[in-house]
Structures are given as C-alpha cells and as structure tokens.
C-alpha cells in the first residue's frame, strides 16, 4: 500500500482503499455505523419532539435526563418490555419477517455512506466509510426499494383492514416516488460520471471554471447549486419516500388509525419506529453526499482553514449538514397539513416525473454542447430552435375549458331522480330562544337611547 499524504489535506479514498482494509478495521467500522445509527435515532426522536414542541409553543419533553434529552432512550427501553399482541388472523411467519426486513434494509443502506476521507485508525489508513462499490448509489436505491416489503407485508400479514389499506397506500406511494427520486439522481450520475458515493463526493470538491462574458467564473462545486432542479425534486421525493408529513398517508392516523403498523406492538413496533427514523437519516445523509458536497467543509471555511477536511474533522461537517436537513423534515411536519391521496399521486406522476425527464434532456443537451462536440453556430441555432419550439407549444397549449358556473336551482334540477331531498332554499332558521331572550334583555338599553 502506498503511503498516503497524512498532512493537513483531504485524502479521497479510492476503491482500492476499501480492498486493503483489515478485517478488524471493517468490524470496528461496522459496529461504529450500527451504534451511530442507534444513537442518531434516539437523538432524532428527541430532536423532532423538541422542535415540534417549540414550533407549537409548548415545552415538549423536559423531564427525563438533562433537559429531557433521555426521553427517547427511556421510551426505547420501555417498548420491548410491553406485552406482545399478535392478532389471531395474522400470518405468523410473514408477520414476524416484516419488521425484520424494514430494520435490516434501513441499516444496510448506511453501509455505503461516506462520512469522511482517509484517516489514521489505530495505525492503519482507512476511509471513514464502511464499504464502497462502483455502483454504491444503486445499492442504496435497492435497499430503499426493498424496504417497501417491510411495509406491505406488515400491512397484509396483520390480517386486518386498516393495516392492509395502509400497506397498499404505502406501496403505491413508495414506488411512485422512487421513480422521481431515481430520475433526480440520474442528473448527478451524468455530471459526476460515476455511481460510487465516495467518487461523487470527490467530484464535488471543486467547481469547474466557466467562461462568462469574458470573465472566468468558478461555478460552485455542490450539485445542489449546479443541479438545482434535481435537488428540489430529490428533496420532495425523499419526503414522499420516507412516508413523512405532509406525505404520511400510509399512517394517516385520522383515517387509518396507524396504518400498516396498527396491529404491531412491543419490540416489533419498535423496529418499525427505528426503521422510519433511520430511513429519514439515510435520505438526509444521501442528500448530503449527492448534493451538498458530502463530508467536505462548506466553501468559505477551507479558504482560511486548510485542514478543515483532514482527519476526523469531516464528521463534523457531514453530521452538521445531516442535522440541518433533518430539521427541514421536522419543520415540514410542524407546518404543513397532510395532502389528500389523489393530490399526492397526481403531483408525483404528473409534475415531478415529467419535470425531471425534461430537465435530464436539457442537461444532456447542455453537456454535449459544452463538451465541444458541436460547433458554436450549431449550438446557438439548436438552442434558438428549441426555445422557439417551447414558446410556441406553451403559447398554443389548449387551456382547460372552465366549466360553466351553474346556479343552485340549475344544479338541483340536474340531479338524477331519487336523490336525497334538500331543504327549500328560502328556509328561514328562527333564532334560538336563548338569543331571543338575550335580545329582549338588552332591549331596555336601546330604549334609553
């Protein structure tokens, strides 16, 4: 193994770095990721409750531990000791497997997440990332698509109506939003030219210089800036994918009691709970990696502090970004009402997916034009033709016909025979006796005037 430069510069791992790991280093990293996820989950639950409480102007959990920060730990310890109730109609085997699938896929997804560059761990050079493969982004997507099984099977195996409806909703929702999510990531693949998470982070280290009106401007390296539409689509799809508010239809408590996990209790419920929060952390970490420069320090820091990306410092930047994104999740939950199911599906299929397809097409054209494969005149001509075409289509697009406003009498007349009777339109509701009495008592005052 070649000697790495361990000075105060960031060292990007390559795929060979992971092949050279010794087994006990891998074991340490594995246990580290596992413990980290558990701790982060406990923290996030408390974080969410406190932030939501703050936004609702109430104290939130403040009894257990310093300022209530141990509340979720006690909840987590309490849950496994509760009584386990399994419905008689349940399919026992699948009922048992479902939460296991949910938790396992949630943990597995984190194995390809890069937390930092190459560090010195007990005298060995290793990357702060459990493992990496050339297609590690696909591994992550595969894990998130496998997690649908946990939800669907839990809903079905409970042998009860509300969980089944929740499971069905959820599978439709997750499949729909997975498409939009995958399409938004395609833009990152095209720009970075790789599918490995560590390489994508490396590709965002510096922006490429752009000639703009004779000046050379260095575009920011973060894909959140370079590929803003993809970033926005990813964020929306991530909320839909994790079943969080305002897209938490699978567990809409006002309609479905608790959705797919209504019949679950005790430890199995705890596993679902854990999986939901880990998924939230995973999509945030994934977003950090793909769009926010990964573990590298934000732009102004590195200019006056050279060593910001060296050693274990990247952990700070990485988790700082993840916590900000998690705050966004919680913020959404505290402020937005739940969407209706048809609005939600229409938004996913008719807005997000077409927009990301058009954006990818545009990006591909941009890449080809910039690579110098076509001449300058061709570039301007094609751009002009496309712009004119888009304008023409937008101009000539048939606007939806507004339905004629019918008066109430006409609407009543159109109702099919056998409809419910309606009260007469000129019905006068007499004032209640109490109001009449109150008015009568007030009368002497008016007489005085």
């Amino acid at each position: 193994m070649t000697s790495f430069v361990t000075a105060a510069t960031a060292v990007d791992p390559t795929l060979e770095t992971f092949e050279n790991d010794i087994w006990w280093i891998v074991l340490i990293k594995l246990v580290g990721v596992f413990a980290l996820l558990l701790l982060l989950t406990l923290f996030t639950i408390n974080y969410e409750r406190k932030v939501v409480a703050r936004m609702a102007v109430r104290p939130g959990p403040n009894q257990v531990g310093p300022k209530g920060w141990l509340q979720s730990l006690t909840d987590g310890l309490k849950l496994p000791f509760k009584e386990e109730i399994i419905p008689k109609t349940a399919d026992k085997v699948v009922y048992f497997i479902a939460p296991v699938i949910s938790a396992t896929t949630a943990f597995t997804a984190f194995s390809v997440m890069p937390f930092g560059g190459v560090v010195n761990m007990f005298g060995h050079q290793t990357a702060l990332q459990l493992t990496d493969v050339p297609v590690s982004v696909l591994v992550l997507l595969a894990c998130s698509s496998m997690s649908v099984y946990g939800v669907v099977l839990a809903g079905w195996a409970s042998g009860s109506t509300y969980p089944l409806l929740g499971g069905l909703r959820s599978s439709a929702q997750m499949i729909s939003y997975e498409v939009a999510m995958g399409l938004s990531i395609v833009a990152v693949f095209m720009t970075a030219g790789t599918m490995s998470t560590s390489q994508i982070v490396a590709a965002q280290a510096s922006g490429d210089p752009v000639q703009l009106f004779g000046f050379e401007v260095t575009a920011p390296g973060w894909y959140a800036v370079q590929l803003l539409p993809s970033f926005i689509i990813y964020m929306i799809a991530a909320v839909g994918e994790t079943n969080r508010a305002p897209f938490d239809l699978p567990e809409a408590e006002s309609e479905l009691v608790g959705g797919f996990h209504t019949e679950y209790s005790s430890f199995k419920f705890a596993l679902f709970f854990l999986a939901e929060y880990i998924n939230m952390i995973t999509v945030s970490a994934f977003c950090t990696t793909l769009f926010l420069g990964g573990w590298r320090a934000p732009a102004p820091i590195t200019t006056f502090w050279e060593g910001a990306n060296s050693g274990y410092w990247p952990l700070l930047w990485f988790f700082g970004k993840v916590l900000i994104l998690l705050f966004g999740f919680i913020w959404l939950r505290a402020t937005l009402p739940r969407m209706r199911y048809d609005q939600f599906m229409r938004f996913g299929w008719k807005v997000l997916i077409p927009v990301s397809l058009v954006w990818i097409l545009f990006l591909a054209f941009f890449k080809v034009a910039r690579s110098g494969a076509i001449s300058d005149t061709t570039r301007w001509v094609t751009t002009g033709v496309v712009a004119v075409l888009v304008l023409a289509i937008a101009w000539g697009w048939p606007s939806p016909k507004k339905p004629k406003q019918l008066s109430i009498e006409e609407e009543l007349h159109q109702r099919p025979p056998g409809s419910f009777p309606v009260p007469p339109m000129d019905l006068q509701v007499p004032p209640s006796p109490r109001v009449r009495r109150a008015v009568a008592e007030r009368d002497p005052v008016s007489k005085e005037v």
Partner: protein
Amino acid sequence: MTVADVLLLALGAVAVGAGVLVVTSAHLVRSGLYLVVSLGAMAGLYLVLGAELVAWVQILVYVGAVVVLLLFAVMLTRAPIGPSTDLDRPALPAVLIGGGAGLGLAALFADAFRWTFYAMPEPGTAERVGEQIFGGWVLPFEVLSILLLSALVGAIVLSRPDIGARAAATATEHERGA
C-alpha cells in the same frame, strides 16, 4: 472447484428451489415472496460473475418494483391469509412441460459450450454496459422499449373502456335529460 463455483451452484440451487416453491405453494402472497428469493438469488449469481451493475439493477427493478406491484395487485383483488383451496390445476402437464423445457435447455447449453473456455471478461462496469446497450444492442433495446410502450398504452385502453365510448355516452345522457 473454486469458491465462485460453489457459490454459483448454491445460488443456482436456491433460485431453482425457490422457483419450484413459487408454483407449488398454495399461499398466494408467500409464493410472491418465494419469487423474491428466486430473483434475489439471480442477482447473487450476477454478483458472483462480477456484473455488479446488472445485479443491483436486478434487485432494484425486479425485487423492488415488479414483485411489489405483483403483491400490490394480489392484495387489491383479494389477499387471502392461509392456503387457497381453488388452485387445483392438474400439476402433471405443467411439470412435464416445465421440467422438459428446463432440462432440455440445460442439456443443450451444456453440450454446446462444454469444451469452450471463455476468459473472464472485465467486471461489468456501468460504462461497459452502456457501451454495449447503446452500441451493438441498440436495436433490440429500442424494440423492447416500443414493446413496453405499446403494452402500457394497451393496458390504459383496456382499463378505460369509457374513453372510446364517450361520445355515445354523452349522447344518451342528453336523451335522458330531454
């Protein structure tokens, strides 16, 4: 036998065994789960052969989307917990046809490539798969996409019988109104 050989055999056995369970199980949803195991074992085979991209796409598409849709459809129509008693097609013809086709194809391939040795190609990276698909195999790829598109349109037409009949329907409505 190398480790790769052993893994290939074991994963192949898992894939075939799970495939047999898919058709013999009387539990509808569980046979869907066996299908997941079978397709997952296929992905494992691709991994052993060094085609990582194909393996993960297999999991992403087949395990993560196709079978989920299948289970979704089963649950939408009816989702019986426990064995279904009305799965009573005679098994013998199916066994004969399936076993015959499988064994015959296996024998054919074993005979054809028995004495041919192929050097293990480079691991199937995304670049190589892309070059192959959009280079030598672009025509089958495009034909397949047209096939899928026509299937999609056909499904919409079948599930929306009201589209073609709209004019007639509005005409009858007008008559009723008058």
